[in-house]
């Protein structure tokens, strides 16, 4: 390999020419007229002699001219051609765009491209769109804006990231998460460390032509984040953004029964169970009346009513609850979000800079949750002389997240706690007459409910512990992007870059010894620290040249990626002192551990972009990756792509069609990989170190899979871009076929083998779909402008090959599986029991069950035994259509924009509802108001079964809890007012904008109580629900 590289460098050196004569050197920059954005790759042609050059990434060019050469011609696809006379001064040109939407300059893999003629598929979200949204992390800014990108913010926790799926699900057991690239290099940090205010654009690469250059990491698409840069030849400009907002729960919770209802219902459950044990109705009722309070362990009706429910099952006359506490309300608050950022940018003739700093504090609506970020950035690029350039981006950020447990069924889950503890139990301790008990200082005392049944979180009161406990995690991140570039000859450049992402995470969880769950162990504390360092070093040689009307861009190089993570953690318990929350103060060591991992990747890559006369475009790319994730035998893989596009508008027969502003067609095919199999050592047979009683211990952990390799995606993309009627109607449409092969599967084994599964590359799946967007400007004049955009995406996911007939998948902890994989079905097809209602005769739950005679299914019947019921395919979690609708209005100095995200079709399995649905066995647990409709001998037509204190499984996973997932959410509304220029000038500033913004203000969804924005697999998991935020802010620049 090294010899190859030497040869390559030898060629490089040989190419270095020193042909600069005594000619005059002409320099200048080319920008886009309306945005002032630098245009890269603009052809700069000398009219007299036909010699030419191209602008660089900063829109700069330099060419040596002879005395007889006097005029430069600037041409760039999609822009009007311009001529300029050669003078002694720099030639700075602004090209007028022929279209406002199609001539975006895209930041793509290892370079930039013009959207019109780009052979790959990419969507862009720009700074303006990002800035309108008051989101705390960038990953949340794509929803509804980028066609083909499914963005699901499944948690409301401030600072938590959205899940992104680009063009479907390409993997089953490996990661389906796209690769993040920040300022040109794969990013090894947390996306929430990047301030959205620092970002110039986000490009989403969707097909092979666009992302094959990322090789073994590009299969799930690539999200390229590019930070703001200064501009050459501009005075320093300061921009200041400030906003403040309030947040609350976006979707109201389920309805619950009240105290009286709860007591009467639990009485009925007790009575019914006694009937089932063989008692007479009278004795059963007597038992229920006598045992009700001792069952629920509380009597909110006071000592005057020792048996509050009579033999008739009704609350006795005169009994009223002495309190009406609300756990959900108690654990909520009005969240507050404040953000402030300052940026300074500018540039001289040779250097440009962007410097920024920001602060964000986002306190969520659930107590004890929050996110804070301090960030700062310096981006600096300079041209030292005509052959040497250098650039440096450095950012530092410190984030702190207070993230109380919020995503599982445990008692500690702040989002779920009100769904565990019924409101019959007081939040604060009460006297027998219902008045508050007070401590010696006159304060209320949290009721930790040691008396509560364990289905109602015995001995726990999260509110009481919230201020005392800690769930904090602090992240300090440094990112470094440094490069030097040598301009070896006209069009020939060598760029070397060294890039590092450093992350340090400090976790600190503390459970106090005074109140709540920590009392018995004297409190506990755990602290963890993890250091991650990922660096990428690359050397890229690029050469741009023309042969007559043939234009070539070549790129070749080599790259090394190395990621090291090292962590340690420990926990101690039994604090001797209150008010101390560090391990130093705890007396008993419970655990101490640490580990480290390395991941290495070495690559060679190259690409060719070619066009003929600005009409026909071809591209090809190749990358070879070697990865430490695989054994030496299957370490190296090749990834490639071909693409072509046709700029039809540039053909002579369309040039005169005035109604048509642009039209292009494109297609691509290629292979990308996915090496993120979840483990760095997935191919090895391993025994876990499992020490015991102070001595070394081991236990088998996985079977070997020596030939394990990456998954490969084969991607076909065909699309068109167009703009009509003076660009008042524009859009794009693409169809794709994304086939994944060598899929990593956890092939289930018989548990009796001692292993439940083995990882293997077996199976294929396919995502076919289309996506597009349409932009219309119904009104467009100086006073009023209305732009309407609609984007949409659809895909079908289909398994085309499996190692065995079927694989049961999608296990949800204790609740069982939800999916089955078979050839022809989708990864996210629900495979669950089918609810058949409640047996009118006895109130038992019923599910469907196949009738099987001699091995054949001959019909269906019903059963009240859950385990006996058959499972059936019940539709997919994947939507039929998803996307967004954007509206932008501008009237004089007012602007209003709105983003509506929608999801049509698909199913959602509401396990949150399961948590609050029981038939009386969940004693003391919060009870859904649906239970009021339960079966009784008098009310037999219902789908809520008869009550009993023994579980009936009706709340197990079945279609009873499966709902249509169609929803729409008003993600963002932003109303702004720009101070008129003259007025702004009078107060000494350039631009002033004040705005009001709302996030998640409206949610339209057919099933009350559930937040529809849940996981891609369509299963809820007691998550922190989305918040709605209402903010005001100010943008100021001078």
């Amino acid at each position: 390999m090294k010899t190859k590289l030497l040869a390559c460098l030898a060629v490089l050196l040989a190419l270095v020419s020193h042909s600069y004569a005594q000619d005059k050197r002409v320099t200048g920059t080319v920008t886009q007229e309306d945005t002032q954005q630098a245009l890269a790759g603009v052809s700069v042609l000398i009219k007299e002699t036909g010699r030419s050059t191209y602008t660089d990434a900063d829109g700069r060019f330099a060419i040596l001219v002879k005395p007889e050469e006097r005029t430069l011609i600037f041409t760039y696809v999609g822009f009007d051609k311009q001529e300029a006379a050669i003078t002694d001064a720099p030639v700075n040109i602004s090209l007028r765009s022929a279209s406002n939407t199609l001539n975006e300059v895209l930041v793509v893999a290892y370079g930039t491209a013009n959207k019109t003629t780009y052979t790959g598929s990419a969507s862009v979200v720009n700074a303006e769109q990002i800035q309108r949204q008051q989101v705390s992390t960038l990953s949340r800014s794509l929803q509804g804006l980028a066609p083909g990108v499914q963005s699901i913010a499944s948690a409301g926790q401030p600072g938590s990231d959205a899940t992104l799926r680009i063009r479907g699900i390409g993997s089953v057991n490996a990661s389906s998460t796209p690769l993040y690239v920040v300022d040109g290099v794969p990013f090894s940090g947390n996306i929430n460390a990047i301030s959205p205010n620092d970002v110039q654009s986000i490009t989403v690469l969707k097909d092979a032509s666009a992302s094959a250059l990322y090789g073994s990491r590009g299969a799930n698409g690539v999200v390229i984040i590019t930070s703001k840069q200064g501009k050459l030849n501009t005075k320093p400009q300061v921009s200041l953004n400030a906003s403040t907002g309030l947040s609350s729960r976006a979707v109201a919770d389920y309805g619950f029964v009240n105290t009286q209802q709860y007591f009467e219902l639990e009485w009925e459950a007790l009575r019914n169970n006694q009937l089932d044990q063989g008692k007479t109705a009278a004795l059963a009722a007597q038992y229920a009346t006598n045992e009700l309070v001792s069952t629920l362990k509380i009597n909110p009706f006071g000592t005057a009513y020792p048996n509050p429910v009579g033999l008739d099952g009704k609350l006795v006359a005169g009994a009223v609850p002495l309190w009406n506490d609300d756990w959900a309300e108690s654990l909520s608050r009005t969240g507050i979000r404040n953000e402030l950022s300052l940026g300074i940018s500018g540039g001289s003739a040779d250097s440009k800079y962007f410097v920024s700093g920001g602060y964000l504090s986002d306190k969520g609506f659930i107590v004890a949750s929050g996110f804070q970020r301090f960030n700062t950035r310096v981006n600096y690029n300079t041209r030292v002389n005509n052959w040497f350039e250098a650039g440096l981006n450095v950012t530092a950020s410190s984030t702190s997240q207070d993230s109380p447990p919020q995503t599982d069924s445990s008692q500690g889950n702040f989002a779920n706690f009100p769904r565990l503890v019924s409101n019959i139990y007081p939040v604060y301790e009460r006297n027998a007459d219902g008045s508050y008990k007070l401590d010696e200082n006159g304060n209320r005392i949290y009721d930790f409910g040691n008396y509560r049944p364990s289905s109602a979180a015995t001995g726990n009161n999260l509110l009481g512990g919230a201020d005392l406990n800690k769930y904090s995690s602090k992240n300090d991140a440094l990112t470094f992007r440094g490069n030097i570039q040598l301009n070896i000859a006209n069009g020939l450049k060598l760029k070397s870059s060294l890039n590092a992402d450093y992350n340090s995470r400090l976790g600190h969880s503390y459970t106090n010894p005074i109140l709540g769950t920590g009392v018995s162990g004297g409190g506990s504390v755990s602290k963890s620290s993890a250091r991650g360092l990922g660096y990428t070093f690359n050397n890229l040689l690029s050469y741009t040249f023309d042969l007559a009307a043939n234009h070539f861009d070549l790129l070749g190089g080599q790259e090394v990626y190395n990621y090291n993570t090292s962590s340690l953690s420990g926990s101690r318990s039994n604090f001797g002192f209150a008010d101390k929350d560090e391990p130093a103060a705890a007396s008993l060591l419970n655990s101490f551990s640490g580990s480290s991992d390395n991941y290495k990747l070495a690559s060679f890559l190259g690409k060719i972009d070619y066009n003929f006369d600005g009409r026909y475009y071809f591209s090809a790319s190749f990358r070879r990756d070697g990865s430490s994730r695989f054994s030496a035998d299957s370490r190296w893989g090749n990834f490639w792509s071909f693409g072509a596009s046709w700029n039809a508008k540039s053909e002579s027969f369309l040039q005169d069609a005035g109604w048509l502003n642009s039209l292009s067609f494109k297609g691509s095919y290629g292979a990308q990989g996915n090496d993120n199999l979840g483990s760095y050592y997935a191919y090895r047979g391993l025994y876990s170190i499992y020490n015991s009683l102070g001595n070394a211990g081991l236990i088998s952990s996985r079977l070997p899979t020596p030939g394990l390799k990456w998954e490969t995606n084969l991607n076909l993309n065909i699309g068109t871009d167009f703009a009509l009627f003076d660009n008042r109607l524009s859009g794009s449409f693409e169809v794709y076929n994304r086939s994944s092969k060598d899929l990593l599967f956890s092939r289930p084994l018989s548990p009796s083998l001692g292993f439940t599964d083995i990882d293997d590359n077996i199976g294929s799946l396919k995502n076919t779909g289309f996506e597009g967007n349409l932009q219309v400007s119904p009104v467009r004049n100086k006073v009023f402008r209305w732009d309407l955009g609609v984007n949409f995406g659809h895909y079908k996911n289909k398994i085309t090959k499996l190692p065995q007939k079927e694989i049961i998948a999608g296990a949800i902890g204790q609740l069982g599986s939800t999916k089955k994989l078979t050839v022809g079905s989708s990864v996210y097809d629900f495979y669950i029991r089918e609810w058949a209602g409640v047996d009118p005769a006895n109130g038992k739950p019923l599910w469907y069950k196949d009738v099987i005679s001699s091995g054949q299914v001959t019909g269906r019947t019903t059963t009240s035994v859950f385990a006996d019921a058959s499972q059936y395919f019940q539709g997919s979690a994947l939507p039929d259509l998803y996307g967004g609708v954007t509206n932008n209005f501008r009237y004089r100095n007012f602007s209003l924009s709105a983003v509506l995200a929608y999801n049509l079709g698909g199913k959602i399995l509401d396990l949150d509802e399961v948590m609050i649905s029981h038939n009386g066995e969940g004693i003391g647990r919060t009870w859904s108001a649906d239970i009021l409709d339960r079966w009784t001998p008098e009310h037999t037509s219902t789908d809520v079964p008869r009550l009993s204190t023994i579980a009936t499984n009706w709340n197990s996973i079945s279609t009873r809890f499966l709902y249509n997932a169609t929803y729409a959410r008003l993600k963002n509304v932003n109303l702004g007012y720009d101070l008129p220029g003259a007025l702004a000038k009078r107060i000494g500033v350039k631009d002033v904008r004040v705005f009001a913004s709302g996030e998640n203000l409206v949610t339209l969804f057919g099933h009350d109580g559930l937040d529809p924005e849940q996981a891609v697999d369509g299963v809820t998991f007691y998550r922190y629900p989305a918040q709605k935020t209402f903010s005001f802010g100010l943008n100021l620049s001078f």
Partner: protein
Amino acid sequence: MKSLKTILYILLAGLALTGSGCSDEFFDTAPSGDLTDAEAFASTKNIDALVNGTLRYLMETSTSQDNPGYGAILLTRDAMADDAIPRDGVYGFRDSYPYKDPFDNTTRRALFFWSFQYKVIDNANNILAKTDAAAGTDADKKYLKGQAYALRAFVYLNLVRQYQFTYSKDKTAKAVPIYIEPSTPSTAGKPRATVEEVYSQVIADLTQAETLLAGFKRSVKNRPDVNVVKGLLARTYLTQQKWDLAAAKAAEARSGYPVMEASQYLQGFNDVTNPEWIWGHPQKADQNLGGASFFAYIDVTPASGYRSIMPDPYFRALFDNADIRKSLFEVVTTASDPMYRWIKYKKFVDKTDKSGNIPLMRSSEMALIEAESKARLHDLAGAVTALNLVRVKRNLPAAAAANFDEIGLIDEIIRERRRELWGEGFRLDDILRLQQAVVRKETTETVKIGTADVLLKGHYVRVFPDNSPLVANSPYYLFPIPVNEINTNPNL
């Protein structure tokens, strides 16, 4: 200027080369928390670690708080029988009590009981197959293999009694698959072997272990030694109704482990140093599983926690007043106590650092096996002698053979098993072995609190889920083969 440029190029070229490492060493990475299989079996020292880890796995692995390793099986066996009751509304075993779980083969408990025991079998199989090739002394190899045989037999003996009715009911019934070779990526699932075949495997393994472990001096009481192996043989023979063998092995097993004194019975059943513990699993604070531990459910004495497994008032009635064990009962009469009106049985008391040890085999059980076997062999005098080993240490007068006929004596010995072994996971096995029905009666016992006669709490589920009466040899008493095994093992 030119030379500077050239220097820069060369510098860059050098950088490119150093960064381009793509030899195989470049890719060498290794996990920090695992050993490869070759490393694991390189030496007897490493294999000893595997035995140690396998024992911890057997005792402590858990998929959820209510499945604390083998302790979950012990607790389930009592919760599904008659003398113990999972307190109403308390997490843990409240679904096992009414025979909902693990009877339902889709539950996590059904999956857990099956998978974790078979993982222990596979680790034992690996040790048996790979120890001979490891570096180490022959004695070490002998002892490691002996322990592996003992562990494998222990698990198969559990499985055969959990997944099928007792040996004497139908030894040709299909029980569970037998694996005696390490699983590889290409191993196929095996069919269910008959009850008879599983017992043969258990006897064969224990016989091997008995030979190999001769001379093995364990350093920790969780290691199976020759006494443990003999005890397991006694249990096996008892179930097979091979009374003479059972009596003989039981007597050998308790050799060196005198039945504890009455006062020691009050010490909380939490320490392997107890003189009559033949086998037990110590715990340490750093591997304390908190809520997911045997003691979290069985110990009802702390101020908070699950405190789930309560005695039936009818069980208390089985004790004489003089019995030291009776002093452990306490009726909860404080209305604000969540255990109000329940009886607490304070046999198990966790240690302060929550590291209560798990009892696995005691001399008392062995004495009672001997007593029962001798009674069934019509040796009433011998039986009473063995029975009295326990009785006198519990402050009871010695029983006299003259006061019993054979059936009466066997009944008394079974009652003694109930009294002595409560909470240690024997009751359901005994009911299955004796082919009896679980008897659950609603309590009518009251306690004076102030002036009122307050009803005690007792059994609240006294029928099967289909409302049919509790009968002998009901499939509700068996553990089901989990649906995952049925789906993935076509040979089953």
